[in-house]
């Protein structure tokens, strides 16, 4: 347990270093600091839902990595719809909270950052979940044990990178 926790902490340092290089911008615009835990947490939640559902289908024998599979389509559709709903709510809330905390970003800027990074994260979650369930199956591991930790940790690290890149693009 302890070595695994330490290895994961080292991996998380990558997102930490990105945040650190990003420090000046984050301190000027508190809306962005509000976004950091929310975007990453939501990506993790979407990942757990998608991986848990795909693993169950895998155990039931209905999982097949193919765009015509109705289960895969339903999961992808649901994750995209959840992402659109949540990340628009987040955009509004982060802008409003940022205003209260003394930030100066325009509504469209915060909203665009939340939506663009959120949708990029949702696409990442979908791709990673499908790939890791398929890979677990091929390698003979139970996807219930492997997929959620892998996908949520990758999302933590890549989530900060995406947030950083999208902020660069919008601001």
């Amino acid at each position, binding site marked *: *347990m*302890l070595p*695994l*926790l*330490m290895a*994961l*902490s*080292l991996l*998380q*340092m990558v997102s*930490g*270093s990105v*945040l*650190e290089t*990003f*420090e000046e911008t*984050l*301190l000027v615009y*508190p*809306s*962005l*600091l*509000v*976004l*950091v*835990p*929310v975007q*990453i*947490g*939501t990506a*993790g*939640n979407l990942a*757990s*839902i998608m991986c848990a*559902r795909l693993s169950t289908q895998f155990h*039931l024998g*209905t999982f097949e990595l193919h765009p015509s599979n*109705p*289960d895969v*389509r*339903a*999961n*992808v*559709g*649901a994750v995209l*719809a*959840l992402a659109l*709903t*949540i990340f628009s*709510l*987040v955009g509004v*809330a*982060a802008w409003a*909270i*940022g205003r209260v*905390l*003394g930030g100066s970003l325009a509504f469209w800027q915060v909203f665009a950052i939340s939506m663009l990074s959120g949708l990029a994260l949702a696409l990442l979650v979908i791709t990673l979940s499908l790939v890791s369930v398929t890979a677990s199956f091929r390698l003979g591991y139970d996807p219930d044990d492997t997929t959620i930790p892998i996908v949520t*940790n990758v999302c*933590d*690290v890549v989530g900060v990178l995406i947030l950083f890149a999208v902020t660069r693009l919008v601001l």
Partner: protein
Amino acid sequence: MATHDSAREIYRGALPAIVVSLVAGLFAGTILGSESMRAGIQSVPGLLLLLPAFLATRGGVYGSLGARLSSGLYQGVIEPRFELDERVAHAILASFINGMTVSVFIAVVAFLVLLAFGEGGSLLQLVGIMLIAGFLSALLMLSVLVTVVFVGYRRGLDPDNLVGPIVTTLGDVFGVLFLLVGVRIVGWLM
């Protein structure tokens, strides 16, 4: 499960839990964006560097404790009573030690990263903040987790469904809050 779930059904089923954790995430973000936290970030080099690792640890340590407790309850080797049963005590002690060890480890790694990039920073300050934040979150997470899992189990709720939301929600909000408390206390001591 002969029929296939539609996207609409999955959406309806998943939305409430996601919205609850969204509210918690916004709380955590608000503390992170608050004036005193921003002052802390500015005055403590390395604070943003260790933030993601610190928050992720909460899930790893207390998520696995919750999973262990609920498996024990189902197997009948743990009784949902608040007596100091040896198994429960061992599980709690192990997560406490894991949590504290990883917190200190994170502080040391963050210091080494700062050192490697020549940004300066104080090992004592970072270790102090992580010890305080790690200890406070251990107290809170252990007591809430054991209480909710035991009480929930006695009332017929599946503890496996309770652990995840508790850990992510409380872990993020109080992780950031206790980090701020740590920064304050260490700033006052040093």
